[in-house]
């Protein structure tokens, strides 16, 4: 067991820190959920890509630099500590790409991965439907064979930034006769394809961060099916475990928030109880950091994360909310100021962060679903007898 970073790891950290210091935008970018902000974030992704920093753990041929998992965790620590912009390419890099790397053909990897790394294509996720949220397997949108390809019909919703994105990856029912989890196909579709229309939906922060996507007989050639027809659910679970575990939400983000929370508590707070809560929340961020290092060692040793990803998801999402709730408590009357208000000063981002953190227990599978997965698959508690499976 060695908890010291190697010289190589320290060097990588220094390189990332220097690059960020030299290249950070001079002021925060507008929200990526707006048209202007989306494009500004895309430009930022291109800058990262130019330094091979947009997907550090990918092989070089796809735009990465073959970094180890530990190095990727270090990158994320530095990235969030620097206050760098949110990752508009996150769906492509952290959700789709692991599935592509694991299950895509070489042609698909060559075609899509470099474009994801460079933000030439920004991706949206087209899974949820109005009637299929937690019960994703009940989804109704269809993929009907058309020659060698497919025709997609139906409606997807709650798709983050789909109004601005270039492509989407979606799950469609390709075999209505098959059992629910067996008849689904994982499809890659450009959002400017014939028959697609996208309707933005405003979120709690007032920005059009969500969208509905309507598919009206949209043609998809065979090369845009990921894996085999009918294999969609399995592939979606690869994506899901990336989302829940360390890939989408690495500890760096929460460490940065926890450090800022401590600074706020230290500077502004006389209330011992609140100071104690801030300390306890910081400790949870530290625990998550250590857990991720331990998970990286297990992954390096060839183990899969499996249902542990669910433990991680519940933990980081509720930690994030706690950190932000505590910060708002510490801000006193300023807690209700919008980020742009003059008196919000440097602390306005806490409110944005709080509103975003509220989504954490909902996306990537609600925490209610996750707790049930933990109970059934990690602890082995019995499934309910009378529920349809």
């Amino acid at each position, binding site marked *: *067991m*060695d908890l010291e970073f190697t010289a190589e790891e320290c060097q990588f950290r220094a390189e990332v820190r220097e690059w960020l210091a030299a290249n950070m935008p001079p002021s925060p970018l507008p929200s990526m959920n707006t048209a202007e902000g989306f494009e500004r974030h895309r430009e930022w992704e291109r800058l990262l890509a130019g330094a091979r920093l947009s997907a550090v753990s990918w092989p070089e041929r796809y735009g990465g630099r073959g970094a180890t998992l530990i190095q990727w965790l270090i990158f994320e620590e530095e990235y969030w500590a620097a206050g760098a912009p949110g990752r508009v390419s996150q769906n492509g890099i952290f959700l789709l790409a692991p599935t592509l790397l694991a299950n895509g053909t070489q042609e698909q990897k060559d075609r899509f991965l470099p474009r994801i790394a460079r933000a030439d294509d920004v991706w949206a996720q087209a899974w949820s439907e109005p009637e299929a949220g937690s019960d994703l397997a009940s989804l109704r949108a269809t993929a009907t064979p058309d020659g060698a390809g497919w025709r997609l019909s139906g409606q997807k919703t709650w798709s983050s930034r789909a109004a601005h994105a270039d492509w989407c990856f979606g799950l469609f029912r390709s075999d209505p006769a098959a059992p629910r989890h067996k008849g689904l196909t994982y499809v890659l579709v450009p959002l400017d394809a014939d028959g697609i229309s996208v309707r933005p939906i405003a979120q709690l922060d007032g920005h059009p961060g969500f969208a509905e996507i309507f598919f009206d007989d949209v043609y998809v050639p065979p090369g845009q099916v990921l894996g085999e027809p009918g294999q969609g659910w399995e592939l979606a679970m690869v994506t899901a475990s990336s989302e829940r575990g360390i890939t989408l939400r690495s500890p760096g983000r929460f460490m940065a928030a926890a450090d800022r929370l401590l600074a706020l508590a230290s500077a502004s707070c006389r209330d011992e109880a609140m100071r104690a809560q801030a300390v*306890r929340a910081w*400790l949870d961020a530290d*625990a998550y950091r250590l857990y991720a290092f331990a998970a990286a060692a297990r992954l390096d040793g060839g183990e899969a994360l499996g249902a*542990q990803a669910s433990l991680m998801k519940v*933990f980081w999402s509720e930690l994030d909310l706690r950190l932000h709730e505590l910060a708002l408590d510490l801000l006193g009357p300023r807690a209700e100021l919008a980020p742009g208000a003059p008196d919000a000063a440097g602390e306005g981002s806490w409110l944005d962060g709080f509103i975003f953190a509220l989504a954490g227990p909902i996306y990537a599978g609600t925490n209610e679903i996750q707790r049930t997965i933990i109970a059934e698959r990690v602890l082995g508690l019995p499934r309910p007898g009378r529920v349809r499976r």
Partner: protein
Amino acid sequence: MRFAFTEEQRAFGRAVADVLARSCPPEVVRQARADPGVRAGPVWRSVADLGLIGLMVPEEHGGIGGDEILAVTAYEQTGRAALPCPIVETAAVAPVLLTALPDVAQAWLPRIAAGEAVVAVRSPLSPYVLDADVADLLLICEDGTVRATPPGLVELTPQPAVDPARRLFTVKAHDAKRLPRAASPAATAVIGRAVLVGAVLTAAQLLGAGRRLLDDAVAYAGKRRQFGEPVGSFQAVKHRLADALMALEFAAPLVHRAAWTLARWRGAPGEPLTARRDASAAKVAAGEAAGRAARAALQVHGAIGYTSELDLQLWLTRVWSLRAAWGDEAYHRSVLRTALLDGDAPPRPERVP
């Protein structure tokens, strides 16, 4: 950076678990509650034969010369078995304290390593001394000094505890001037380290006890049927147990990191920047997680869990006791507040998490 135990370290933990499964089943823990002789009896012998008592005694004194990383997997198993013996005090803390009393160390460490001596410790954090009545040697930390005394020179007042397997005493020395003592800046540093070791390995025991409680609750919930279903199939039960697991899973890395910090800085002068923070983090998190597991286990068992019929109470009371031992919550939280809010040291040193 590689945050993982070696196969050798894991194997040692498994070996300890196997031995304790045979030598320390719940019947032995129950017996220990009634019979004061169990603590230094065959169960003590079984862990001595395994090398656990000499684990952290230096080789030149007849021990194995192992470190806290090796110890932490083993001590978790002692918590899981609710071992009714002063193993933290004798096998982990005493070897540290005795570095301040070289002559006493010379005489006693070989006997400790061989499992032939039980040591009781009064730490600066608590006046309550575990198993002083069966101790061969008593080490008293007070005002930056360490004093060693045979028990005959002190008066023991029993302080019955919630866990009857833990016999606590307050201690009064008849004639303090006659006792060997070490009082120097070095003694303060030694006491400081001893407290950290005590806290971290007690935290490991709490993890083990918590996991045992969770396992028992899961087993019970799988068998107990109400309304035609095992109660473990109900969501409220599932979610409570999932939360108990989560607390234990995220406390464990803090305990393991603290063990690493102590092992890494062994023998080096001074105290690593984060040692107190790391030890207190381990104790707070493990205490809370074990407490949550205890609460969940009792709740899932329902009324029968509230009786003394089940073995459950052996672990419930152990958790409640250990949470107050080697630094209670208030003490450790205060260390953390100082380290994180008031200190000069950065919360996260560069090279080491």
